[in-house]
């Protein structure tokens, strides 16, 4: 039961089917990579799991450690243990990183308990150091004026501070140079644990040079068409997505 389990999920946007009988099971302790061409429904999947209200789920089920999270509010899903690192993190002017993460951690405490500021800052600084984020960053407004790399590092910082059971990383590697990519990968590797599951959504194989996945899934037209081990990502990189289409999609259609 300790898994993020998606079964036969069908999702529409404006009546248009995007996810089609999508199924995926990520047990705790595993890193799954989800690859696929643009427009195949990868980001939709991430947002539906996180409870975004713009998507119409017509059937299927999403279980987090055995409990259904479909139809729950995004904050309930977050508190249940799911973290989504955004492809495009939003800017929140005037709200410092330190205050934002603090509010998010406070939301995880019982109502009559408040955060210990000294311990909080110690944890924050330790984790910033590990992610090579300048401590001056804590006072900056969340994501405001950040470079692409800074935004993604900030997502990983939030992830490591909130210690979720399951992490979904939606194209976290897009727009990163090789140094930033390594820092993000280091962050994920530090968090890798038998108690935590990851879903790494990516278009390219290169992030998977640094985060070695247990399972690689290839997604095409709203569903997973092929799964394999880490080698599959490399094969995909050399052969391209047309290979996927020719080898797996046409055979499915028959």
């Amino acid at each position, binding site marked *: 039961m300790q898994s993020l389990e998606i079964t036969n999920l069908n999702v529409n946007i404006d009546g248009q089917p995007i996810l089609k009988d999508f199924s995926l099971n990520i047990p705790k302790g595993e890193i799954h990579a989800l690859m696929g061409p643009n427009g195949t429904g990868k980001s939709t999947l991430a947002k539906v799991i996180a409870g975004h209200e713009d998507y119409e789920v017509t059937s299927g089920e999403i279980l987090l450690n055995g409990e259904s999270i479909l139809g729950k509010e*995004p*904050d309930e899903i*977050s*508190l249940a243990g799911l973290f*989504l690192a955004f492809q495009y993190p939003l800017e*929140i002017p005037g709200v410092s990183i330190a205050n934002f993460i603090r509010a998010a951690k406070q*939301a995880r405490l019982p109502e009559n308990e408040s955060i210990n500021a*000294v311990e909080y800052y110690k944890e924050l600084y330790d984790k910033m150091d590990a992610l090579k984020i300048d401590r001056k960053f804590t006072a900056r*407004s969340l994501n405001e004026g950040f470079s692409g790399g800074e935004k993604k590092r900030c997502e990983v910082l939030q992830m490591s501070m909130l210690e979720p059971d399951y992490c979904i990383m939606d194209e976290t590697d897009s727009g990163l140079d090789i140094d930033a990519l390594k820092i993000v990968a280091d962050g994920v590797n530090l968090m890798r644990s038998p108690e935590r599951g990851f879903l790494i959504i990516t278009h390219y194989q290169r992030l998977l040079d640094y985060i070695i996945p247990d399972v690689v899934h290839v997604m095409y037209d709203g569903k997973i068409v092929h799964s394999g081990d880490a080698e599959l990502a490399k094969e995909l990189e050399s052969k391209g997505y047309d290979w996927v289409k020719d080898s797996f999609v046409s055979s499915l259609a028959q």
Partner: protein
Amino acid sequence: MSESIINEQEEAIKVDYEKGNFSFPEDYTYDAGTGLNEETVAYISKVKNEAEWVKEFRLKALEIFNKKPMPTHWASKDLENIVFDNIRYYLSKGQKPSRTWDEVPDDVKETFERLGIPEQERKFLAGVEAQFDSEAAYSRMKEDLEKEGVIFVGSTEGLEKYPEIFRPYFGKVIPSADNKFSALNSAVFSGGSFIYVPKGVKLKQPLQAYFRINAENFGQFERTLIIADEGSEITYMEGCTAPKFETATLHSAVVELVALKNAKIQYITVQNWSNNVFNLVTKRAHAEENAEVKWIDCNIGSRLTMKYPGVVLKGRKARGEVLSIALANDGQHQDTGAKMIHLADETSSNIISKSISIGKGRSTYRGQVHMPKHLKNCKNNTECDALLINTNSRTDTYPAITTRGEGNTVQHEASVSKVSAEQIFYMMQRGLSEGEAMSLAVNGFVNDLLKAFPMEYSVELKRLIDMEMEGSVG
């Protein structure tokens, strides 16, 4: 800032404004009845045992009030919903303000205790005046300030006991004829604070007034006049609440400030009237040479607020500042702004206005900056930022800047932003409720301005915003 300080401060001013929604049965000795005419004015003047000149001042103002049209050619048509004939203009229990809370009538005392006023007084105030409908029920200042010659009394006592100090400035900063509501106030004013700070005296702690409306269909018309003599400094703070009655209530104050040479006045308002109150207030200051006047004006409540605190910069190097935050929720219109009238060389002014409109709430900014041609080296900086939360809310900006002359600089910046559904989703994905997420976005929007506020008030304001935002989520 350490955690323990913040907690202590939060505790020191635990004013839960939802607690403002209660009232006690009416029990008044003096009641001017309903409606307004010369007899009403004469009744008020008689109850107060006023000098003849004050009575004449009132009657003349009534005449002006009756002649002046409603300013609906530029202001909200909602003003037409005020029925002056249905309002009660004076209600009091007929006793002088007590010097100890024990002497205050039980219902009044309980009112202010529930609002946390005596507790605040003990913790961080130099003096408090608590007004219940038309008159102050309690007024007290620390004894050492009295010895230094500081005067802190109500308007009636100020005009009666210290006419030589107050009369020269009374009605001079804001003449009765300034606008229809300043005329109304001048005709029926009661309560408010008259303060004089002698030369060189610097008050380390704020003086506070708290205005409370208890009766339905009542109009509150307090009158405040603060004179800071040369080189003196004072911070004054006012707060207000009223119960949520079915019918509209009118609050129309006049506040005049006079900062003489090298003096500093800081005037802080946290307005949280219930949503049935028309809040139409005129506030203006005179700043003499090298004097500084700062208005910090926060409008959270009321049905319609119209208020544009101003500074007339009369002396060389005088400085004026208006920092304001307005929050308009469903059914509210915050029509606020600032006026800076430069009348001397090297004067400078700063206006920062932040408004938040939620749901069907509406915010309007009106600003006036006046710099005549003959002046040199004057500066103004104006920033107005509006934040919209959901598509129904509305915001307007009407800046009026007249600058002539060389070497004067004016800078004006305006921005409108929205809290998007995606921002809320992002914050909720981290575990914040929708209300907490909105509250955080709003606090972020006003954050840089809050840093300029004294800490007691920024903490209080944050709490009020949190409560408003929590309440605005369905």
